[in-house]
């Protein structure tokens, strides 16, 4: 139920009504000093992709602020590999943004910690992928990463910076989730656990192979449910999850309505998961793209009832269909996405619900009718996030 006394809910409703990009995530780099197995990005040096300069980021952030931006998550890659990360972040702060910084923590020395503390962050979000150094280092594929991450977290906590330690349940760390949570508690951090393993932006579903077995995944999903009582309102979810009749009339999420994503080259996306840009901020202003994009208009006009399979799914009450994941996984954004359906089934099991996902219950033949190319992407438009690829045998077989 909506709490109409809650200022956050009221602000989200107002932003939804006025199409104000209240919340944005900017990836200032796709370069990183670690190489996490499950990362959805193809990591590349900034020079190679022609990443935005400091001045270009300043202009774009000002335009985003003028459009009503409030919450700004600055992410990478690893943000600290950019020498101007603090210049960008402090400029955003001076504009009045509430900042979240996403980092792996390994490069946070005393100087970086002092700078982060001066920003009065809403929070720094740092991945802790194992409770034991060997596990974390194995997933991050960098020896010594665990020790550096913990040292970085301690530096932030010593300066009073709020830190969230994040972990996605994987085969390698499934038995250490309790330990990771204990470390978070000991360091005075909030712990956030995920059971969603998103495909890579290039369409590869390889990260899914890193998930643990079902028993461990359901255990993790139960813990996610227990922890979600402390969660902040989702920036991408619908405002009123729960009542089926009302949900059908709603937009599936906030993508392109009150949230957006900007990539390191200035591509504007409706959300972080969306792989097809609506335009580039080197070529047009934020206002121009945000207000005049036909693609955004189409996304904004979409309702859950437009998704035939989702609309009849028994799990709709505990699921927010994700257009972006559907686009990435099935080539069409009109839900469902196998990843999201899998997470909905996990939630159902964690909550003791017997129902199954309508999509996952379909036969392979029925799914194929929905233009499915398992694990591959068929996009109606060209994406700058996706490298050009040749037609594969899989595609030819599907055709």
């Amino acid at each position, binding site marked *: 139920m909506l709490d109409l006394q809650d200022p*956050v809910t*009221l602000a989200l409703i*107002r932003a939804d009504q*006025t199409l*104000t990009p209240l919340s944005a995530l900017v990836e200032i780099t796709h370069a990183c000093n670690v190489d996490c197995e499950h990362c959805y990005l193809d990591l590349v040096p900034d020079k190679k992709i022609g990443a935005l300069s400091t001045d270009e980021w300043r202009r774009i952030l000002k335009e985003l*602020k003028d459009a009503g931006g409030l919450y700004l998550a600055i992410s990478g890659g690893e943000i600290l590999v950019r020498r101007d990360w603090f210049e960008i972040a402090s400029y955003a702060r*001076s504009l009045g*943004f509430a900042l979240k910084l996403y980092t792996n923590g390994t490069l946070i020395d005393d100087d970086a910690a002092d700078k982060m503390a001066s920003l*009065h962050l809403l929070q720094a979000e740092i991945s802790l992928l194992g409770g034991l150094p060997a596990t974390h280092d194995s997933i991050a594929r960098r020896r010594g990463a665990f020790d550096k991450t913990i040292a970085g977290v301690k530096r932030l906590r010593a300066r009073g910076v*709020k830190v969230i330690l994040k972990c996605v349940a994987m085969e390698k760390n499934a038995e250490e989730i309790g330990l990771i949570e204990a470390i978070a508690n000991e360091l005075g951090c909030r712990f956030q656990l995920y059971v969603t393993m998103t495909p890579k932006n290039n369409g590869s579903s390889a990260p899914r192979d890193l998930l643990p077995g079902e028993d461990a995944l359901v255990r993790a999903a139960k813990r996610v449910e227990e922890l979600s009582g402390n969660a902040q309102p989702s920036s991408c979810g619908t405002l009123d999850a729960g009542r089926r009749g009302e949900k059908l009339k709603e937009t599936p999420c906030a993508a392109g309505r009150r949230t957006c994503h900007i990539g390191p080259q200035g591509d504007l996306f409706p959300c972080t998961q969306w792989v097809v840009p609506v335009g580039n901020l080197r070529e047009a202003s934020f206002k121009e793209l945000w207000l005049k994009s036909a693609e955004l208009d189409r996304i904004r006009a979409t309702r859950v009832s437009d998704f035939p399979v989702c609309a009849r799914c028994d799990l709709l009450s505990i699921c927010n269909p994700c257009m972006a994941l559907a686009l990435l996984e099935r080539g069409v954004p009109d839900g469902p996405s196998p990843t999201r359906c899998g997470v909905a089934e996990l939630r159902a099991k964690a909550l003791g619900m017997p129902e199954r996902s309508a999509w996952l219950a379909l036969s392979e033949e029925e799914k194929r009718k929905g233009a499915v190319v398992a694990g591959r992407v068929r996009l109606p438009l060209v994406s700058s996030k996706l490298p050009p690829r040749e037609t594969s045998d899989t595609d030819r077989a599907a055709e």
Partner: protein
Amino acid sequence: MMTSMSPTKPASRYRLMTEEVAWSQLEPNAVLIQLDRNEVHLANPVAAAIVESLQSGSATRDELLERVLEKFEVDAAQAAIDLEQFLGVALEAGIIAKE
């Protein structure tokens, strides 16, 4: 003989605590976040106009009242009450400071 007069005390000025507060105009409202406490406030249109004024620098109570009266067709006495109420709440919440 000269008589001494007590100097007039300068009026207090109010400023937005920009280092610790995030804000956005969400017409006709404004959203304010006190970052260290993670407290979110949704300002009504009058309060939003005051916040907008304070974004460009500090102001006295009279200057703020003048801006409210410029922007809204309201009774001056009522506007003064609303302003007083907002300043009290915003000071308490750490959103503005008195200089």
